[in-house]
């Protein structure tokens, strides 16, 4: 692979839900090492895009190529095994397992089945490093069920880091977080992006302004514009889309459509 070839290349992608075109011919490239923000009003197709890349949703047409491999048609765990990891809008962690066990499971997915039958002996360096990085060391032995919302998001990010993916897809990592938690998450993001390729879907424009270098704006299933934050903000089209729906940008995306999509992916 040449250096110029993007790590993630989405071309001509369309997704249809019951006749509704959630994604309508998107072309998008993310280069290795990039920190890319995907923004756009509700229903722009941001989460759906991540769902397609990770195998949760089947596209009607188009292709998703990751490091030269086609991802469309692969199952979720196969996509993960190729090096693509994701988090969810509403952080899903395993509440009965401890924080450490959550991270350890994420780190162990390349183990063979017989190796998994063995008991975990202590804490591996990799797991310890990730716990430290996500600021969860003090909570390692606690059941994940007691974590606060923000801590859950960090645990999700920690689990993602433990998988050591080449590409990380984060779906609204700061939704519902307090100001301090958002700052902490932003720092974590910038830190992670130093040695990995990261795509962040975000609603919180203030957060995007602070941390984004490259931004792609989606609108009604299409790419509206791409560029650095300043040029995107100056774009009259973007202003129109956002001014027309300025209240929407602050509200969290409703959870119900995401669940519906999930079901369709399962069927």
């Amino acid at each position: 692979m040449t250096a110029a070839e993007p790590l993630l290349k989405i071309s001509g992608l369309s997704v249809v839900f019951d006749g509704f075109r959630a994604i309508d011919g998107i072309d998008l490239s993310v280069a290795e090492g990039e920190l890319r923000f995907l923004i756009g009003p509700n229903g722009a197709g941001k989460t759906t895009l991540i769902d397609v890349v990770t195998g949760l949703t089947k596209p009607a047409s188009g292709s998703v190529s990751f490091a030269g491999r086609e991802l469309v048609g692969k199952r979720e765990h196969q996509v993960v095994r190729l090096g693509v990891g994701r988090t969810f809008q509403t952080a899903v962690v395993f509440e009965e397992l401890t924080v450490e066990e959550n991270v350890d499971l994420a780190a162990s997915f390349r183990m063979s089945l017989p190796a998994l039958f063995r008991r975990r002996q202590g804490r591996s360096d990799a797991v310890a490093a990730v716990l430290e990085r996500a600021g969860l060391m003090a909570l390692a032995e606690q059941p994940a069920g007691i974590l606060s919302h923000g801590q859950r998001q960090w645990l999700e990010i920690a689990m993602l880091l433990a998988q050591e993916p080449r590409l990380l897809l984060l779906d609204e990592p700061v939704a519902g977080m307090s100001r301090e938690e958002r700052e902490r998450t932003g720092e974590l993001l910038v830190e992670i992006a130093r040695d990995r390729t990261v795509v962040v879907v975000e609603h919180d424009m203030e957060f995007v302004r602070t941390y984004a270098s490259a931004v792609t704006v989606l609108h009604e299933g299409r790419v509206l514009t791409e560029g650095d934050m300043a040029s995107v903000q100056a774009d009259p089209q973007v202003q129109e889309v956002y001014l027309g729906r300025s209240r929407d940008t602050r509200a969290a995306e409703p959870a119900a459509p995401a669940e519906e999509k999930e079901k369709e992916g399962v069927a």
Partner: protein
Amino acid sequence: MKTPGLLAQRTKGGKWRGVVAFAAVALLVLAVAPVTLSPFRLELLAKYLCFAIAALGIGLAWGKGGMLTLGQGVFFGLGGYAMAMHLKLAEAGPGELPDFMVWSGVEELPLLWEPFRQPWFALLMVVLLPGTIAALLGLLVFGRRVRGAYFAILTQALAAAFVIWLVGQQGLTGGTNGLTNFSSFFGLDLASAQDQRILYFIVAIVLGLLYLGFRQLVASRYGRLLIAVRDGEDRVRFLGYDPAVVKTVAFTMSAVSAGLAGALFVPVVGIISPALLGVVPSLELVFAVAVGGRYALAGAVLGAVLLNYAKTTFSENYADGWLYLQGALFIGVMAYAPKGVIGLAGQIRDFVALRTRGPARRIPAQQPPPVPPGPSADAPAEPVEPVGPVEKEAVA
């Protein structure tokens, strides 16, 4: 869903308590019961322990893995018939037909029966038949993401179909009567109380070893993964695991344990027949696990012994009352003690703690001091709080 107090109970002290409890139960079962119980009662206990072996498998598949399997009777039956076929052939002697075949007018030994003359083959089949069928079924069904109630119905239908097939094959399986009249089991005289006692020890030891094995499995990474699949199968996919494989492994092990239970049941009770492994017996096993406490393997064992003991006792006195009592017990447990008998102690402890101290003070007391987890001192994170995201959003 679960209160933090309940979640935080997995402590280091609990480990030792578990070892002591296991030793105490082992002492009771291996030393006290054989000398205090009459041969008749000991045989009954051996039967309960057979059910406990099958219940262990349900505890693993359902309690830990979330797979509500209502057709364990199928695997119990496969193990039982594999054993019974061998015992019948051993009894008939070389070249002879088992008695029931003669009565049904069968003149030549069916091809299916022939290899069961070999004891090693029969023993292998006790494990392999249920194991292979469960593995194939699991990969097929879980791979297609059939789960929840659909899986439960499928397994129950399997039990019903299996019984119909068994009944229809009079010459091959003994039909409704099943296979019975065994006099010896690998050299043990089944009519002698002394040899029945040895059989009892065999059953108890198999149960003990299986329990330890399953415990080890649950404590392993695989066990954690199984619980993760139970609580969030779709999320597990994004950890890079195929949940179908994870579930199939547990389902297969549960089938093997049911097969072992069936194989031991045959010499202990002296019969295997379709009535013992249809929909109702399969459901009774699940009831027992629910009553004992499905989230703990020990609960499954306890439930199987308790419920079958109660069944015997009640049936001796009020033959018809048992069914109603069993139903009422099941509803009661589901409504008021979802963690079963074994979870009652913890439930009462939590209840008392809530009453006397109140939830607000109690929860931080059980947690370590809330350390700000953020490495950067200027951005301290929230202390550990059980309060959900609702309040956080109000702050943001």
